[in-house]
Structure formats: structure tokens, C-alpha cells
């Protein structure tokens, strides 16, 4: 919400996990069902359904894993871990086609999206309404702090670069992150990966696109390490060393 809204484009691309009930339209034995379900692991073609928010062109989506949790006759409980933009309704339909009996999706629950799963910080609408009321009417902050989680919790799975206090405000103004501003780097960052630029206090400053690999960020002496894409932190939260320096020359105090 508010400034946190800027993380959305990144969150929308996160992998998801679903549990869904697939209803078969005919009788199928366990072995055939298992075999066909397993065929859907890996990259699959999907055409977005008629009622969808995107262009209905055939596209490839990756199913990282899929398993049958339970089965009761024609009702099959599936768990699917997939790339963003995979349609579960379509998946169930397509499994039914391959089985030769037809199938449709009966029920769906998303159990994880990126780093948010249904076992941590989950809030119901009732929680949110109550928390807001307690705060408005009774100045109670705790319930509000439980229902509303810091934006940082939503990007836990994104690789991080931790920067100096003195580098923060320039990033808040959209400047790219240069190597001298870096204090810590998570391993495994590749060029063009989305990275989170963090303060030493664990605050998300901005999301950006890596221009260097982790190793380069650690060994290089200068150069742009991350292009800033979405600024989350409000400018002015940290002092602007860079502005002062520009005005009175390098070496002038704060």
C-alpha cells in the first residue's frame, strides 16, 4: 500500500503454489492419472482462457512441480508449483483432454506467492477491519502491525544488496547503485536479475536490475552495479550527502 505499491510489478512475476480440486468427467485408473499428471511437469503450452486479463496468444509456462495430494473417485486434489501467469483452470482442462475423459477445475486456493505463504502473517478481512478500528478508536497499534506487514516481508526471496547510509538518498532519487556504495552482496546474482537494494537496518530502498554479477560487485572498484527501477523509500529519509557534496565540493562535511 502507499509507497509499497511499487513492488507490485515484481511480485506479480513471482512463482506460485496452488491447491486445486480437479473434477474428472469419466473414470480413470490411478496409474493413468499419475502418468498424465506427471506429463505436465516442465514447460507447457497454455492459451489464456476466454475470460482473462491478457492477450490470448499461446504461451509457454513452466510447471516446476505437481503432485496428487488425494483422490476420491472423480475428484482429484492437486498441488501445483508454477510460474506466474499459469492458469490452473486451463491446466485441469488440459489434463482432462489428455486423459480422454475431460475434466474441470472445481475449487482453487493459492497457498504461496513468492515469499508469502498461508502459514505466515496471514490476515482475514475481519482481522484487517478490527485492527483498523482498534487503531482509529483506541490508538492500539499492535493489531494493525500484525495484519499489515512491512513491505520487506514480501521480497524476502529476492537477492539483496546492502548499501551505506550515505548512498541511500541518491537511490531514493533514482540514481543507479555504484560499487563504492555497496557493503554486502548476496551470492548468485546474475546480470539482469531483479535485486533489492537494502539499508543496514533492513529497509527496502529500491528494486533494481543487476548490471553486474555478485562476484563483480564484490571485486570491482567502481562502476554501476544495479540500475534502479522502482524506488520504495521516500527521499529525505536519509541525509543527502550527494547534494551537499555537489554544492560545496567533495570532502565538505554533512
Amino acid at each position: 500500500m502507499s509507497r509499497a505499491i511499487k513492488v507490485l510489478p515484481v511480485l506479480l512475476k513471482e512463482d506460485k503454489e496452488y491447491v486445486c480440486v480437479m473434477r474428472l468427467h469419466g473414470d480413470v485408473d490411478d496409474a493413468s492419472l499419475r502418468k498424465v499428471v506427471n506429463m505436465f511437469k516442465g514447460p507447457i503450452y497454455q492459451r489464456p482462457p476466454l475470460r482473462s486479463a491478457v492477450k490470448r496468444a499461446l504461451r509457454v509456462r513452466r510447471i516446476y512441480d505437481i503432485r496428487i495430494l488425494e483422490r476420491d473417485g472423480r475428484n482429484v486434489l492437486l498441488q501445483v508449483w508454477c510460474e506466474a501467469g499459469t492458469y490452473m483452470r486451463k491446466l485441469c482442462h488440459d489434463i482432462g483432454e489428455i486423459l480422454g475423459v475431460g475434466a474441470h477445475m472445481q475449487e482453487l486456493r493459492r497457498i504461496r506467492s513468492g515469499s508469502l505463504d498461508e502459514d505466515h502473517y496471514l490476515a482475514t478481512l475481519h482481522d484487517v477491519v478490527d485492527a483498523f478500528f482498534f487503531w482509529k478508536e483506541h490508538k492500539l497499534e499492535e493489531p494493525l502491525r500484525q495484519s499489515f506487514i512491512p513491505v520487506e516481508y514480501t521480497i524476502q526471496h529476492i537477492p539483496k544488496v546492502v548499501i551505506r547510509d550515505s548512498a541511500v538518498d541518491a537511490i531514493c532519487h533514482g540514481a543507479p547503485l555504484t560499487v563504492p556504495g555497496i557493503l554486502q552482496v548476496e551470492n548468485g546474482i546474475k546480470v539482469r536479475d531483479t535485486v533489492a537494494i537494502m539499508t543496514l537496518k533492513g529497509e527496502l530502498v529500491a528494486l533494481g536490475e543487476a548490471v553486474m554479477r555478485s562476484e563483480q560487485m564484490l571485486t570491482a572498484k567502481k562502476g554501476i552495479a544495479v540500475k534502479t527501477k522502482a524506488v520504495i523509500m521516500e527521499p529525505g529519509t536519509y541525509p543527502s550527502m550527494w547534494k551537499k557534496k555537489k554544492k560545496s565540493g567533495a570532502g565538505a562535511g554533512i
Partner: protein
Amino acid sequence: MEKYLKGTEKREIFIKDEEDTNPDYGWKPEERPIEVYLKYVAINLDKPVGPSSHEIVAWLRRLLGIEKVAHAGTLEGC
């Protein structure tokens, strides 16, 4: 059986340089004063079956009086 199909990834942090952070600026996310805290929040919402994500967002907007409410991903048409 693990509940989630995706396993936990182990990532390492490498220290390039050591420095302190000035306590006069910024806050640990959990320690932000409530007015600031609310600028940087998300809800991991246990959405009820029935209303669409769009309807929930519109409803929360009215309730909270915050314009900037959005949702990350809908289940409709999936």
C-alpha cells in the same frame, strides 16, 4: 511430506565492507512509527471465496481511506 513443493533456498551474504548505520535516520521495518509504518505495508490476505480481488481492493480503499491499495494477482479466470 513437506507442505510446499518449493524447498528452502540457502543464500549466502558476502561482506565487502563494514560500516555502522546512523540511528538518527530510518528505522528497522518493525520499528517504524505507525504513520511511517503504514506507508510501507502489505497484507497477506486470506481472501474469502466470493468477492473478487478487485472488489476487495475497492472495499479496503473505502475502509482505510487510502487510495494506493492494489493486489498482486487475482485468481479469477485461472
